[in-house]
């Protein structure tokens, strides 16, 4: 059910944008208003979410320790998987965010004739890493549409990405990786029973959206060519707050930009916020130094407990008979 609803939602966006992009009066809506609204929603939604998380305190130090703690001087300490210094935490977070360290640990457990077998399982890690880096590079590449002159770095990335010179215009490596990786993530959701079992519409929808964005992007470049000069004029207009709708931009462009806008607008209200959350996860971004350094819980209240005095009062005779020292005989 989630699958069909999600697919339907993405197709609906495509159809609406397709029609809208062909009605001259509506081009302004889909080319200017929708992107602006989406971007603002993304910006403020993202900030709201992060600030809202930050408003809840971190009362206890709960890092998940993934290696030997800092201990006796002759014991080798796992500085990155079990950091107890700020530098170590920065290192651990860098590994987590740039290389998906935890996902890299992934294993696959199986029952085989009475034995539990654990095999390495790196495909999810590879696809996840591939997808995120490809998407990031694609986003950077797109900045060439929003800048004039185009910064050298962006030009360089664009060149490297297309360096294989296959086809005209050349195929981007990241486009291929993007489609393959998202396709893989989609297939495992569909065909691995465990993953299918846990999947919600909120899992299928972003995948369909990403696939649609990638597909329309590629279609625009190779099949339904759009006038890149006009697209750039529109993008520059958006970026400089003097939006214009140039003549003769193909319908496919309006579909693409509306899909991207949908992604932006959807982002802060969805699981995609893991992008912000991963930085703030208390099991990863805290140093394992809670026996070394005093940490304060801002909402701590003094505990009500059974004091020694009450204890001795209650058990004085028993303690006396047993020869246990007392405060008061």
């Amino acid at each position, binding site marked *: 059910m989630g699958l069909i609803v999600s697919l339907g939602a993405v197709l609906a966006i495509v159809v609406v944008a397709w029609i809208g992009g062909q009605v001259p009066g509506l081009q302004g809506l889909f080319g200017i208003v929708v992107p602006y609204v989406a971007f603002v929603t993304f910006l403020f939604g993202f900030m709201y979410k992060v600030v*809202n998380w930050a408003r809840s305190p971190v009362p206890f130090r709960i890092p998940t320790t993934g290696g030997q*703690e800092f201990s006796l001087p002759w014991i080798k300490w796992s500085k990155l998987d079990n950091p107890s210094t700020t530098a170590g935490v920065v290192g651990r977070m860098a590994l987590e965010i740039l290389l998906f360290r935890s996902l890299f640990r992934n294993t696959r457990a199986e029952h085989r004739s009475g034995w539990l077998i654990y095999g390495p399982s790196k495909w999810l890690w590879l696809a996840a890493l591939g997808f995120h880096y490809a998407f990031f590079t694609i986003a950077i590449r797109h900045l060439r549409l929003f800048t004039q002159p185009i910064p050298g770095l962006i030009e360089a990335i664009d060149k490297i990405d297309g360096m294989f010179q296959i086809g005209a215009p050349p195929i981007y490596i990241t486009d291929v990786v993007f489609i393959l990786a998202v396709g893989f993530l989609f297939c495992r959701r569909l065909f691995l029973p465990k993953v299918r079992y846990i999947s919600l519409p909120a899992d299928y929808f972003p995948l369909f959206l990403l696939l649609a964005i990638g597909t329309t992007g590629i279609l625009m470049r190779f099949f339904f060519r759009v006038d890149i000069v006009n697209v750039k004029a529109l993008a520059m207009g958006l970026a400089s707050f003097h939006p214009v709708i140039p003549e003769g931009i193909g319908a496919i462009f309006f579909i693409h930009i509306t899909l991207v806008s949908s992604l932006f607008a959807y982002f802060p209200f969805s699981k995609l916020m893991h992008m912000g959350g991963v930085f703030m*996860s208390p099991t990863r971004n805290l140093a394992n130094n809670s*026996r070394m350094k005093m940490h304060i819980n801002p909402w701590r209240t003094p505990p009500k407990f059974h004091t020694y005095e009450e204890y001795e009062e209650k058990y004085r005779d028993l303690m006396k008979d047993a020869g246990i020292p007392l405060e008061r005989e």
Partner: protein
Amino acid sequence: MKDLTPQEMLRIDLHPPKTPWMDIPVKIKPGVYCYPAKPEKLEVVGMPHPHKWSPLDDDWGLPEDWKEIVLNGMRERLEKYRSFKIFMDICVRCGACADKCHFFLGSGDPKNMPVVRAELIRSVYRGEFTRAGRILGRLAGGRKLTEDVLKEIWYYMFQCTECRRCSLFCPYGIDTAEVTIIGRELINLLGLNINWIQEPVANCYETGNHLGLLPHTFKQNIEFMCMDIEEFVGIKIDPPFNRKGAEILFVTPSGDIFADPGIYTLSGYLMLFEHLGLDYTWSTYACEGGNFGFFTSMEMAQRLNAKIYHEAKRLGVKWILGGECGHMWRVVHQYMATFNGPADFLEEPVSPITGTKFENAKSTKMVHISEFTADLIKHNKLKLDKSRNDHLKVTFHDSCNPSRGMGMFEEPRYIIKNVCNNFYEMPENTIREQTFCCGSGAGLNAGENMEIRLRGGLPRANAVKYVHERFGVNMLACVCAIDRAVLPASMSYWVPEVKVAGVSELVGNALIMEGENERSVDLRGEPIPGRGEEEVSEDV
């Protein structure tokens, strides 16, 4: 269930059904659920809504405004814990955690996949707290909190041992233990705790220990072990209790004072301290290192934990030494100072024997016995005869909490390698930070839930079986009192040839004490092969 053979138990299908999990109603099964808390045990500590009820009844005797209580409780905890708030929002359901849980691997129940366990609560969060969920319901992955949903949450919160194995593999560090801890707090707002947790909590509050040992019994039990030591080792020990002015307060889980094989670990402590002439004391008041309050609510954990510093202050000790225990060490390491510190009335711990400063404990001022012992061995302060453990082929089970909530891996291994000649590691995906739970942690070591305990214990037992068949391993060493209490049952079911021992017991076996006898038996009173007493013991 008692009749299930291991072969039958092993028929586990890890493939979930096609029906979405929200459409499969919960079925509470004997052998899996634990008995409810007795009302009087809730009353002792002033916990809300004590009442008689049964998980198998339709009517759980909930208060009229139960839904409001739970939702307000959730709201409050979302404001108090950033962890909870973030973990409710960012799971992408990638499934990396799915096959990391011992309960899932042992039972095949798909709701024991960590992601689903958390989704049980997350779905309520979405359905009751987010706008999209309130409007779109199921489409946004949300559902309303109903009695059936509550029962499902209850059932699965008590099938999680808070071992954190899943959190190690999560790309965002989502910690199911954190979700379970908060889930159980919510359950406790309605008086729905299980008795196996609640009774120890009540006991610990009053008598100072989970077992409810009264002061004189606590002392007697330790003295009984001293009699055993005198018989087996030839050394007379007179341990100090509630002694003011001692340098060190020693606190261990009360399980070590009570039952086989934990009591032999206790013997190990007693002999070590006697050998060193350590200036220390036991306390009959702060006589529990374990903390079942931690399986109830943060508040209860704090209330039970408070006794340790309170007693340390009264006795005027310099620092605290802690025995072998799992969750005790998560509480000590990650929570204790924040709960009840700062411990500025204590001094930074220094070993009186070696002069080593325990830098890693300088604020909380509590040192793990394995850290203490490893340091002694490193400085050649112990004379050890490894060959007394030669009849043992030892493997080491990393307990969840010291592993993933502290990171103590090398110290116990260093000790074992110095007191035993035969040490074999289990496969790497089952040890150290990837270690598997015993299957009965977090207060789930009751008798009535034995089936799920054995199922949860399967991944650990399976790895033990591997080293047993490959290397002839016959002893599973550990540094956790719950392990010592529950692994014997798991072993006798899955790998009957393997016994369980605390690391300090192995130290006690190897320790050469001044004035000791020829040591023909070990701390259990069993003949050590090749030491000439094989036949004697039966004839006495």
